[in-house]
């Protein structure tokens, strides 16, 4: 392995993918996976702040028990907008479409994704879908929540649901095309020697995610079309007045949307596997088991959707079956967590910005994941369903897990994407602020849920004692917002002022660090790639300790003794 020399001064290469063409057309018509990743990064961040705005208004409303700021209708539209934008336009595309697009082809030694034009089409579908959805918000909003349960969405609601669903349909096809692209790429574009069990876990995770996307998304897409048909043409499929079953919609929706939560978290888990191994300077513990658990999660994830429907007139028989299966799906997630922790154990952990995000991820995912079985056990879920407990559960996983993973990965690959280092001080600070803000925001929601506060209500004058928790949560949300805004500034600043990172600032293994410049060339590699090394071969790196010193880690006790 070519090892970067520590402390050396680096230069940005003369020609790389960013300065290979400066016109707007060279960006908007690009077929380069790295440029498309940058396009995605911009659009996804924009949607994140749109969704964040809605969230801020929701939190503002909840500071008072009387719901004084908005009417019920306005509040419904706010939380729906928040959920729709965050789920379909931020978390689902964030890691695969930004980090995956950028890193996946390089990691397997390919010059590009298999179908570059299809990749660009994905981005356009995403943008058009997002614009349509935003239009539907401007024209009056959507009030059925991100879950669009019938018959509310198909018969009763008189908001812009049809238009919004058209946008979601397009966004769905955007992710399907990304999935198809990843599948073909991982199967056929690997460099010689890059066998399945040498793949970095980020690739495994994106591959499994793509399978879920390809199998699940069309189901929800067609279900949403059925809702559109019911609304606009007055067809009847889920209509109870015709003897149809509105709960069937929930079945079909969750058949996709439970696996979709793994679409959100699996790629983030892949990021964590990369990072934890790099910053513990140690081979990932139990490579095979982690790969296996990735695939197992993807498969079992399709077997548990009924746990969202325990109390929507699903039969008790099905409820029990799904309850059991739900408890099983927690096992592979636990396997991963144990492996990450064991990787850190006796490793020499370096507390860089990405690593702090990783530690945040592991802790928060643990809490979020462990509350899953509570919700999955029917008897317990009777009390918890429809309360803030559920809200806290999935925010711990999606915000504390997926977004932390995304930010960690972004900070990890940022030097590779743009060739410059950001300010490590501000980076660490932002990671800490996010972690603290997050806990203040969402931990009180567990208590609220336990006390019985229902989700999707905008007043609670009947229980004013909840106000203190809600105020805590809203205050935490403002801290969290600051934490999310900070990277916007220091990362942007790094593009101009950051010191050149050099090909491998972290001393990481992997083709993207060792065989490409930062930023990479348009064709990624200057040489022909043949992979011989095992993955995460950190034990073979001799200057691990120097890397740790460089990033400010003190030698461990046992290390001092051996010195």
């Amino acid at each position: 392995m070519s090892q970067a020399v520590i402390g050396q001064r680096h230069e940005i290469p003369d020609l790389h993918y960013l300065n290979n063409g400066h016109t707007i057309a060279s960006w908007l018509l690009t077929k380069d996976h790295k440029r498309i990743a940058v396009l995605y990064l911009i659009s996804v961040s924009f949607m994140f702040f749109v969704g964040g705005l809605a969230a801020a208004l929701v939190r503002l409303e909840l500071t008072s028990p009387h719901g004084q700021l908005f009417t019920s209708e306005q509040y419904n539209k706010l939380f729906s907008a928040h959920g729709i934008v965050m789920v379909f336009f931020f978390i689902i595309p964030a890691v695969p479409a930004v980090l995956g697009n950028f890193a996946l082809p390089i990691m397997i030694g390919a010059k590009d994704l298999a179908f570059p034009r299809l990749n660009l089409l994905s981005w356009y579908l995403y943008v058009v879908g997002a614009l349509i959805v935003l239009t539907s918000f401007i024209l009056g909003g959507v009030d059925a929540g991100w879950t669009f349960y019938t018959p509310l969405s198909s018969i009763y609601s008189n908001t812009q649901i049809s238009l919004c669903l058209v946008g979601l349909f397009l966004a769905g096809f955007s992710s399907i095309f990304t999935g198809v692209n990843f599948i073909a790429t991982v199967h056929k574009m690997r460099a010689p020697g890059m066998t399945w069990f040498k793949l970095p876990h980020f690739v495994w995770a994106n591959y499994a995610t793509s399978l879920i996307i390809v199998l699940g998304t069309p189901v929800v897409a067609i279900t949403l079309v059925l809702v559109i048909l019911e609304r606009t043409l007055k067809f009847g499929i889920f209509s109870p007045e015709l003897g149809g079953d509105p709960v069937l919609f929930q079945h079909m929706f969750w058949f996709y949307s439970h696996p979709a939560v793994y679409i959100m978290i699996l790629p983030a888990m892949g990021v964590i596997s990369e990072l934890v191994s790099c910053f513990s300077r140690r081979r990932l513990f139990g490579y095979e088991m982690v790969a296996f658990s990735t695939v197992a999660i993807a498969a079992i994830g399709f077997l548990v959707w009924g746990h969202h429907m325990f109390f929507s007139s699903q039969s008790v028989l099905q409820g029990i079956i799904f309850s059991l299966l739900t408890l099983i799906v927690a096992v592979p997630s636990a396997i991963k967590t144990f492996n990450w922790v064991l990787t850190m154990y006796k490793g020499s952990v370096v507390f860089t910005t990405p690593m702090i995000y990783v530690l945040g991820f592991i802790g928060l995912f643990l809490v979020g994941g462990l509350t899953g079985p509570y919700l999955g056990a029917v008897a317990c879920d009777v009390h918890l369903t429809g309360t803030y407990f559920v809200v806290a559960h999935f925010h711990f996983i999606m915000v504390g897990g997926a977004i932390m993973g995304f930010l960690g990965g972004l900070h990890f690959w940022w030097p590779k994407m743009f060739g410059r280092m950001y300010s490590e001080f501000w980076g660490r600070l932002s990671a800490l602020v996010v972690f603290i803000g997050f806990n203040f925001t969402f931990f009180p929601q567990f208590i609220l849920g336990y006390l019985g506060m229902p989700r999707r209500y905008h007043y609670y004058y009947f229980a004013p004692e909840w106000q203190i928790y809600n105020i805590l949560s809203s205050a935490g949300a403002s801290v969290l917002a600051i934490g999310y805004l900070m990277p916007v500034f220091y990362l942007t600043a790094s593009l101009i002022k950051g010191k050149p990172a050099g090909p491998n600032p972290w001393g990481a293994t992997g083709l993207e660090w060792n065989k490409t410049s930062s930023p990479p060339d348009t064709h990624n590699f200057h040489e022909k790639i043949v992979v011989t090394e095992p993955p995460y071969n950190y034990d073979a790196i001799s200057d691990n300790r120097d890397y740790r010193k460089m990033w400010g880690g003190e030698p461990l006790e046992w290390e001092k003794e051996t010195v």
Partner: protein
Amino acid sequence: MAAHGAAIDPNEPVVYEQYETIEQQQETYLVGMWSFLVTEVMMFGALFLVYSLYRWKFRGEFFMFHEELSWQWGGLNTMNLLFSSFLMAKAVQATQLKRAKAQMWYLAGTIVCAFIFLIIKAIEWIPKFEHHLVPTASFHWPPHEPHGSGGGSPEHAKIFYSLYFTMTGLHGLHVVIGIIAITILMVMTKLKAKAITDYIPTEMVGLYWHFVDLVWIFLYPLFYLIPR
């Protein structure tokens, strides 16, 4: 293997820059197409699921509803689509054997069949609009001059016709997309190369078209041939 930068041989397929060999490129395109077809199967699969649920739920009644559909027209269309699929398979074969003329003729034949399919569909659908059998607000059951008994509950009839129009409609949409795809394929083949270089574009359009046929193979018995 076609080397990069070397003069392009008009008889050899172009290897795009992200691939190493033509075999790799061709197989990749096939994998991509097949994983897209997985999506398509799941998309129609969800509708088939809804169908089977209601068919099972209203098993006595679906027979009466389906009597308004003409199994003769449907049968004709099945035959037609099977034949078009056959032509498409021949087109792919001709392309592989580099017989440009035959390829064009077979593709043209496939398009003709596709148009016949749409015409027959129109013949079936248009009277349904007049007879208020389209499940919009003006849906009416029993029909004024029923072909069959006209029995069964009007509500369930509406579900049946919603399914019928959604599923055959989505399938019809795929036929239209197929026509567009084949047309583009023919134009591109004519414009781009004097001799056929790569059979993969034809193969991919072919896979798509066979899939359209595949869906109809199930739609026909499920809607037109319901047993009593």
